[in-house]
């Protein structure tokens, strides 16, 4: 845990130092006179905003070596939040420049320079579109795959125009080495996108999978089993996830993140349980057996530590999926560490894997606590929504030291669980929490 904390701190420091260095690097070996504070401040923000935009490409390039102790959901959230910050800083650049000298308004006037004004208006519109479509994609009814395409195009347009702006203005970026540096970094950022969308799919194409089984599960869910075609399968850690493409080319935009539900002991057959929630997942049950599939993964840090003496899992709805993979792996490996599972779902009948979990609880050191929202007739256990008191009881029983807590489910459940566990003294490093709505 301490190793991961140090790693995270090092990555955060590298992120800040890289971005913060850009204005100073731009001013290096520069012999023009400085200007008034507000204008130079705006220039600093512009350089910083552009550098943040570059790094946005790295955050979504799915490199496993970037902050390996952090889950991909955390990196995606960082990407989302940093995108908003970068948007604000880049926007502040022209606002402050115009506030410093209103002659900068000419930059936006087509009569003063059509190409320049058009480029700047395009980049402003692209910035607004990329942020708006990301924050309100569902509300705007934008299909995920079209949003992915638009996101990549808009991001490329933004950094490209940003580079052209920096080069054309040329106040600081006036030497050959600076032009080469800014051009190279922009090309690198766009190249990362090419790596993600072209090179990685080419690799995936060499390791195809086929749909071996599609079976209905309770609660409008389906389990899809995949088997490797012509290769040895995939090694993953229980609790991780993969980006899955089914019935389409590996270059398809139809790529969705799903947690493995199967045991990590089986590389030759992996299973995903998918709830019917959107356009694509709503049709998952119609997937024909034999359809080609591609897996980009594994990713994620939602895993059970070897050092943990016991584990307490808290699952809500389809958030049971990665936890099921952890439990199946724990069972298949003959792991004797005690595990408790609090599993909340809409109804008892709608609980995926219930029978298997009950069997596991009979045969293994698993304490199973099912929490249906509505109690069925004859139900003697608890019912209703999860409460802080329930999580407090878990901490009282299973302790704060040597126990790892794994939480996966809808955001309200996760917030309540994490907040309560932390308030009851569970160290942050002993809690693994992963959201499944990362896109």
């Amino acid at each position, binding site marked *: 845990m301490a190793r991961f904390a140090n790693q995270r701190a090092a990555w955060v420091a590298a992120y800040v130092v890289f971005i913060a260095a850009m204005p100073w690097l731009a001013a290096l070996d520069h012999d023009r006179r*400085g*200007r008034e504070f507000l204008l130079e*401040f*705006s220039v600093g923000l512009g350089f910083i905003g552009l550098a943040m935009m570059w790094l946005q490409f790295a955050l979504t390039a799915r490199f496993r070596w970037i902050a390996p102790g952090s889950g991909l959901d955390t990196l995606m959230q960082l990407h989302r939040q940093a995108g908003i910050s970068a948007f604000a800083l880049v926007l502040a650049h022209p606002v402050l420049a115009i506030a410093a000298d209103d*002659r900068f308004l*000419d930059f936006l006037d087509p009569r003063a320079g059509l*190409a320049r004004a058009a480029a700047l208006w395009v980049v402003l519109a692209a910035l607004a579109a990329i942020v708006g479509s990301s924050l309100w994609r569902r509300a705007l009814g934008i299909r995920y795959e079209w949003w992915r395409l638009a996101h990549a195009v808009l991001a490329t347009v933004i950094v490209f125009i940003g580079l052209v702006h920096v080069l054309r203005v040329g106040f600081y970026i006036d030497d050959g080495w600076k032009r080469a540096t800014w051009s190279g970094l922009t090309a690198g950022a766009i190249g990362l996108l090419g790596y993600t969308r072209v090179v990685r799919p080419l690799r995936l194409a060499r390791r195809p999978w086929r749909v071996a089984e599609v079976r209905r599960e309770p609660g409008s869910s389906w389990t899809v089993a995949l088997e490797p075609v012509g290769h040895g399968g995939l090694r993953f850690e229980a609790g991780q996830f993969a980006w899955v493409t089914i019935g389409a080319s590996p270059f398809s935009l139809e790529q969705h993140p799903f947690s493995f539900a199967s045991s990590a002991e089986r590389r030759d057959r992996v299973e995903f349980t998918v709830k019917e929630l959107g356009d694509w997942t709503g049709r998952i049950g119609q997937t024909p057996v034999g359809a080609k599939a591609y897996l980009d993964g594994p990713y994620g840090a939602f895993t059970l530590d070897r050092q943990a003496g016991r584990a307490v899992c808290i699952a809500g709805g389809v958030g049971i999926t990665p936890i099921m993979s952890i439990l199946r792996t724990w069972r298949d490996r003959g792991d004797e560490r005690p595990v408790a599972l609090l599993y909340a779902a809409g109804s008892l009948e709608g609980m995926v894997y219930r029978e298997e979990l009950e069997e596991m609880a009979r045969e293994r050191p698993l304490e199973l606590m099912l929490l249906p929202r509505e109690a069925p007739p004859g139900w003697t256990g608890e019912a209703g929504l999860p409460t802080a008191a329930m999580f407090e009881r878990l901490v009282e029983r299973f302790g704060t030291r040597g126990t790892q807590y794994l939480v996966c489910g809808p955001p309200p459940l996760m917030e309540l669980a994490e907040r309560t566990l932390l308030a009851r003294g569970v160290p942050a490093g002993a809690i693994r*929490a992963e959201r499944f709505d990362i896109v």
Partner: protein
Amino acid sequence: MPHYQRTRLLVVVLTAVLVVVAAGFGWWRSEDDSGRGRGPGPRAGHGQMAPFLPGEEDG
């Protein structure tokens, strides 16, 4: 604090740091009343070149 809020807070803090860095850059590059730059280094080119304003570049 839940990990999502920690990440959000982290970005807010990082953004604030970067704004301060930009402000520091602005201060370092800006001129005082005498027309001289405040910061050290090879800046403030002693009037060799005029400050950049619209119309000076060809974009």
